[in-house]
């Protein structure tokens, strides 16, 4: 199907270590093959190798042979995410400016927007309170040292933390350290003299930006995840090398790009949230190949639905990730997650209203149809009942479903109470889960000021293609794209990743004082130079390196900034006026005409440099049109159409028989391995030259 000249006999492997499954996508010999294994929590590398082996078999190669031919192995992992959500990380010690040790408990304000007082909890301690020590030193807003650092105190306190409290890693959190790094660096150096091997995160190194809560929390989290990340990184590297990998090994970051093993060791926090980010990167790459610029993307798994937005082929980056109660400075691909998946449970609320999710039956007991003791109806049970999921072909036929169990739990939960038939109950669950997903897509689009009707909906994952049309209809979206290999799309997305490094630096340039430009230039030059140097040490040549500069600007007295592009050159004093004007224009574009603050000066708060090293990537190519057989229908199946609320015999079409240009009019079902696509009445599905299904109304 593909043009294989470019990377003919070199393999690219993407591995996504997820909560339940470890997914592998391999591009080799002009085709994509998949591998899947259960995630192995005691040693993640075992599951990774098992999944690679499954894929290798599809090429009739041994794992050693496949790894030997691999040019690049890219890995996304949940290790860092899990370390934080489970609060099981390193024992961290903190040195903080005297007077401010409680910042970690306050965490910027713990109160949520929930009304219920039982949902107002204290912020969990990432750090033992005994392991927070206060240090005499003070730097002010301008970076001026008001009170010099007491190095003897630093050493004494470091000894206390290591010898008496027994910490494994340290973070140094001083006020205004982004404006003047001197004290944090001196403290780090002094401690390294005593403990050369201890892992230390000075806060300015991970987030040199104004606002101590985010900078300090980021520094603590980086030390907190260090130990488990290190074990994972080392083990995977060693096992893969032993197994024969000779090519590159990269780790995927939540920011949407790879980094090397060494970088990952220094900044393990960057590995946070890499799974959903890979899906977004893959979506954007696919959109670019298709010549599309605006995409809403969705991924439905067993427990949750993830959705994100791509505008003008730029993935929306959440610049200051809020991780539960923790406010961080982590830049991450912005993905909203809601509890809507195949395992989401249907129930009746206190008001007597049917609901679906957010609780999930998970894999144990799982949907009732599995016969593992599930007593509550799940979305999967509803779709089995409606006839959309073939009990004989579930998960590629590996599991035999029992539809009568699904019917039983649906009747028990809803039937008698609401006077519903089994299929009414199932269709109701279908409708509710569709609304919940549509609302999440609305949040990422309308919530950011975009009209979803101007986007196409890219739907992937094993389950979503059953619901994608109905979600799109609720949002007025006309075009839906379902990619080939939908169920391992995230792992495939990894293969589209470039190396990315990003640095933000607080600069605080008052634009009404153009002369401040000198300092900004000094900082910008240093940032760009360092970033390029880092990419060069990663093995990229200058012409493979792309540098993007942006700045965050806000009116004096405001809390939130807008990000504007900066020119790739030295700034001049005269630029201040133009930057301010550009900011005003962007402000009114974003917030509406007449909303800019009249007569109020603005400051350029942060300068950011994102540097990308272009990574070799497989050529996915295009497929050419082949004559399709005139009758694509494999069989007719009786299904209950949820939107029409009636039973109908509709054609089921084998994915394999759909060649480029093949068209199907709804209602119909397209059956692929691990994925079932529903084409509702009035909708047409066509296979395009990238082997996607494009659904239009």
């Amino acid at each position, binding site marked *: 199907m593909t043009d294989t000249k470019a990377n003919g006999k070199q393999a690219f492997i993407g591995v996504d270590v997820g909560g339940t499954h470890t997914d592998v996508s391999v591009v080799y010999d002009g085709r994509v093959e998949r591998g899947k294994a259960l995630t192995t929590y005691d040693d993640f590398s075992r599951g990774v190798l098992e999944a690679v082996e499954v894929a290798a078999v599809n090429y009739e190669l041994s794992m050693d042979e496949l790894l030997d031919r691999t040019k690049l192995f890219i890995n996304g992992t949940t290790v860092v995410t899990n370390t934080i959500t489970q609060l099981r990380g390193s024992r961290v010690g903190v040195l903080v400016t005297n007077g401010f040790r409680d*910042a970690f408990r306050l965490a910027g304000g713990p*109160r949520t*927007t*929930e009304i219920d007082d039982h949902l107002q909890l204290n912020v969990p301690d990432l750090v033992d309170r005994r392991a927070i020590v206060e240090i005499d030193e003070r730097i002010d807003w301008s970076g001026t040292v008001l009170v010099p650092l007491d190095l003897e105190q630093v050493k004494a306190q470091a000894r206390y933390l290591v010898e008496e409290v027994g910490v494994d890693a340290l973070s140094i959190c001083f006020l205004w350290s982004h404006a003047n790094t001197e004290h944090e660096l001196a403290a780090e150096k002094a401690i390294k003299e005593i403990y050369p091997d201890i892992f230390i995160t000075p806060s300015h190194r991970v987030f040199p930006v104004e606002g101590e809560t985010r900078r300090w929390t980021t520094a603590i989290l980086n030390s907190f995840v260090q130990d488990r990340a290190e074990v994972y990184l080392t083990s995977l590297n060693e096992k893969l090398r032993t197994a024969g990998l000779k090519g590159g090994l990269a780790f995927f970051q939540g920011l949407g790009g790879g980094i090397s093993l060494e970088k990952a060791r220094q900044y393990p926090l960057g590995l946070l949230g890499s799974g959903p980010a890979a899906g977004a990167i893959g979506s954007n790459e696919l959109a670019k190949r298709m010549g599309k610029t605006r995409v809403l993307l969705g991924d439905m798994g067993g427990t949750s639905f993830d959705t994100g937005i791509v505008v003008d082929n730029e993935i929306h980056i959440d610049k200051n990730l809020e991780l539960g109660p923790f406010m961080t400075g982590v830049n991450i691909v912005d993905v909203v997650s809601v509890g809507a998946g195949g395992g989401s449970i249907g129930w009746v609320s206190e*008001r007597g209203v049917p609901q679906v999710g957010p609780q999930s039956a998970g894999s144990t007991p799982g949907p009732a149809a599995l016969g593992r003791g599930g007593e509550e109806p799940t979305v999967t049970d509803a779709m089995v009942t409606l006839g959309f999921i073939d009990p004989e072909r579930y998960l590629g036929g590996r599991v035999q479903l029992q539809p009568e169990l699904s019917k039983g739990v649906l009747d028990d939960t809803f039937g008698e109470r609401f006077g519903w038939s089994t299929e009414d109950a199932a269709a109701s669950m279908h409708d509710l889960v569709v609304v919940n997903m549509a609302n999440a897509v609305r949040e990422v689009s309308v919530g950011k000021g975009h009209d979803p009707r101007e986007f196409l909906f890219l739907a992937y994952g094993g389950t979503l293609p059953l619901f994608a049309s109905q979600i799109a209809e609720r949002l007025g979206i006309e075009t839906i794209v379902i990619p080939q290999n939908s169920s391992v799309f995230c792992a495939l997305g990894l293969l589209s990743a470039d190396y990315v490094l990003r640095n933000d630096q607080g600069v605080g340039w008052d634009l009404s004082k153009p002369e401040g430009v000198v300092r900004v230039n000094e900082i910008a030059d240093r940032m760009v130079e360092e970033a390029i140097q880092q990419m060069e040490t990663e093995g990229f040549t200058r012409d493979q390196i792309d540098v993007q500069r942006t700045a965050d600007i806000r009116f004096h007295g405001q809390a939130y900034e807008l990000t504007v592009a900066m020119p790739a050159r030295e700034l001049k004093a005269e630029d201040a006026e133009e930057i301010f004007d550009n900011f005003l224009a962007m402000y009114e574009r974003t917030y509406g005409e007449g909303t800019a603050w009249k007569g*109020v000066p603005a400051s350029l708060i942060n300068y950011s440099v994102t540097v990308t090293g272009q990574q070799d990537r497989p050529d996915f190519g295009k497929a050419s049109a082949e004559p399709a057989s005139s009758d694509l229908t494999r069989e007719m199946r009786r299904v209950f159409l949820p939107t029409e609320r009636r039973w109908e015999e509709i054609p089921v079409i084998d994915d394999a028989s759909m060649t480029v240009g093949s068209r199907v009019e709804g209602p119909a079902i397209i059956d692929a391995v691990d994925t079932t696509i529903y084409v509702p009445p009035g909708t047409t599905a066509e296979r395009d030259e990238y082997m996607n299904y494009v659904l239009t109304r």
Partner: protein
Amino acid sequence: MSTADYDVIAAEVHRKALQNLTDEMAITLVRTSGSPIVTESKDFSTCLMDLTPEHLGFSSYVLFHVGSSLIGTQVIAELVREGAELNPGDGWIVNDPHTGGAMHQGDVSIIMPTFYNGEHLGWSFANMHVLDVGGVGISGYAPGAHDVWQEGMRFPPIKIIRDGIIDPEWENYIAANVRAPGAVLNDIRSMVASNNTATAKLHQIIDEFGLEAHQAYCEINKDLSEQVLRDRIGKMPDGVYEAVDWNEFDGHEGPDRLLELRCSLEVDGTDLRFTYSGVPQIDAFVNSTEGPMFGQAMTGLMTTLVYGDLPVNGGLWRPITVELGEPGTIVNSVPPAPVSNAHSEVGMRACKLAKDVICQALALSDDPVLRSRLAGQHQDGFPGNALFGTNQHDGISVVFYPDNAIGSGGGGQTINDGQDAYGLTCTTGGGIPDIENHEGADPVLFLWRRLVANSGGPGQMRGGQSLDQAYAIHYSDSMAGPCFNACAQVPPHGVGGGYPGSGGSFHPVRDSNVGALIDAGVLPTRERLEGNAEAVRSKITHINLGRGDVFVATSGGGAGLGDPLLREPSKVVDDIIAGYVTEEHANQIYGVVVDGSQALDEKATAARREQVLHDRIGSKPSKEMKAPPLIGISTHRSDGRWSCASCDESLAEADGNWRDGAVCVETPIAERYAQLEMIVRDRLEEPRVVTREHFCPSCAASLGVDVTTDTLERLPSAQALS
């Protein structure tokens, strides 16, 4: 109503659509305003109402705006019924607590009608705390005003918007009357934009569902919420529950007044009737009116009773009436009463009173879920100050407002300790601005920001801790502005034998040594700070701080839940290690003793706890004190009597006051708090504030700790419905 009569799924989908609508109104407000009061402090609210008017959806930011939106819209609906012209694109501005249901003048509402194909369907509402409304105060806070006319612009509902545009003449008027005209007009425009979003989205929803179904589903969803709340109320025993509290006012050069107010709750089947009463209104900004009273009563109710599957809409208010008695009191004031802190003075006491009487009823419920909802009181008051002057960046004029409200502690809950820095009951979603944000813009140097040891009220579930911050005026010669502290002398009381939290306070330290220490290369810390610590009143019209002066603002904590002797010693030790309680405090109130390395001394703790029990009742207890079956429930009322929940000792007849059978230890609160190393402001004038600790005469369990005045005979106990 049977669910078989309508499409239950469609009704639920419709409800979610209306919730999205109010959320999108909020998004529009945040995006178009840009004011930090909206973006950071989240001091705003949006909602949609029908013709009645009843709420159809409400975005939960500042909860008490259920009151201002309901009453403000009722007033406008009445104007329309009386013949006021009504067209699409019309909009009313409202900020007057006396005539428009507003919380205080600083909270400005824009209310606009919703139409569909020419038919008037209801109202949309947006409200935010604008930067200024003129008058002697700033940002709407005028502790020095003696009447409402000194407090700034008053808008009873006035139609200043036509075709979605603010009348230019009114723009000129507003611009001429406020300190920050550009920002204030921008705030008003953003509220218009928010209302426009409501109209546009409502059109889409009705297009999808059809007008008839839309209206039917609105009614269904209100009915469903009403039914759930009624079911919950039905599980609270019928009866009359009463509580007393005091508003503090020491401004206007004295006298130092305690203004009594009461709330009586009748639980009658599935109805709740709150009746507030209070002393005559005074010539200061503490007085309240209908909007703040209703809004704050509902805030106390919602945070306690709205949980799980219970969407907020007009159905929730149907079982509830709020009576305010004759006009002319602090709870029902009339002009010329000043009201610019109505929501945060008498209003916050009203919130605590509502929760107090609800908790009394919950404690007697048979339903385990409802009983689990009782909790220690939140602090609900804060040492506020706003300072004006020039900053270090070319002497630009700035407003420095360190938000101490967010630093107030939350009450202990049955499921966990109270939340530290919970804020006020009404301020869901509020955040604490970073020190670097303040220091970057304002001429101050923070010396510390820390949790206050022993600020959380002692209890089996400890109250949430509060925040203490100190800053020096370091880059300016002078800063000035109002200061106001609502909860210094009468702190929030505990529940079920739990103890009150600490009070809030503030004071300047004049002519400090901060500059000298810095010159010497020494960090100014709490221990090293020297200067003239000046005792000041809680309500100050105008404080002046010069270069080198330090201002220390200490918020108060949340109250405890349950007898502190029931707290696991290991948790007390954790608190000592964390610095949340001092060893002396732990010893005095928790009976926990640690050794030199802060490890639990089990033997000494057992002995100390025995001693505490002995001291409580003045003799060795005759029965063993056991943990009551439920956290926070110290007394039972069954079999015709009140009894101790720990040992079942009889305390009083069921129609009597359980306090009659308890050992009562009365101590001036300042004295008791000094023993416990807790903060409270002592009163120098009559009446004194006292703690009354009530213990079981047999097992010495803590049954209830009242915070009251020495002149009040005793607090009332739950009574049967007459």
